[in-house]
């Protein structure tokens, strides 16, 4: 039972354009969402996150949007750069309170290729 899904295994974008990576989830108890970026032979690195009390969080070229009613989040990268080429994982967790176990549920990743 895959609770976090990234239905697009790959995405190709021209440099300078917008990249939009999508993620869907099924568990309505999830209240914190994160995006990780992963280069080959390296571990995932934290990129940006959003709490369920917000619908948007922005950090430089990266913006995450959350649509709770649709159980959908997206990561926008603008402008895209060749160095952004990597695998992007979306992750979700339950609870930022003291009851949080720290468990992250990951999607299967989307490979982004930004062409020069």
């Amino acid at each position, binding site marked *: 039972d895959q609770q976090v899904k990234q239905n697009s295994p790959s995405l190709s974008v021209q440099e300078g354009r917008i990249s939009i990576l999508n993620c869907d989830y099924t568990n309505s108890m999830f209240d914190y969402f994160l995006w990780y970026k992963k280069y080959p032979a390296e*571990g995932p690195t*934290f990129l940006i*996150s959003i709490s369920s009390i917000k619908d948007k969080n922005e950090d430089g070229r990266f913006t995450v949007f959350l649509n709770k009613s649709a159980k959908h989040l997206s990561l926008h990268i603008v402008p895209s750069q060749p160095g952004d080429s990597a695998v992007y*994982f979306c992750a979700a967790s339950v609870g930022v*309170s003291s009851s949080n*176990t*720290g468990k992250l549920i*990951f999607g*299967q990743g989307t490979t982004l290729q930004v062409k020069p």
Partner: protein
Amino acid sequence: DTAVSQTPKYLVTQMGNDKSIKCEQNLGHDTMYWYKQDSKKFLKIMFSYNNKELIINETVPNRFSPKSPDKAHLNLHINSLELGDSAVYFCASSQDIAYNEQYFGPGTRLTVT
């Protein structure tokens, strides 16, 4: 300075052997994790420790046993290795259990032949 380090980076071994993967973090974090990334690229949590106390123990065979000698280290011991154990294993840490931002090590690619 590497924040979360794992050794070895690559591990090739035969079925039936026992092996260990070591993880160390120098971030001063209280919580550490082990994840497994299988051939389908899914990252799944296996264990987490908070201040040396086991918090998460997912449905993992008993052949896998984490050990945390102190809060900066979380090692993974695997007994009687099987072909299906071949995967990339990632260690991660977070400031404490209430913080969701986890910092990952570079991974250990385990190949069981």
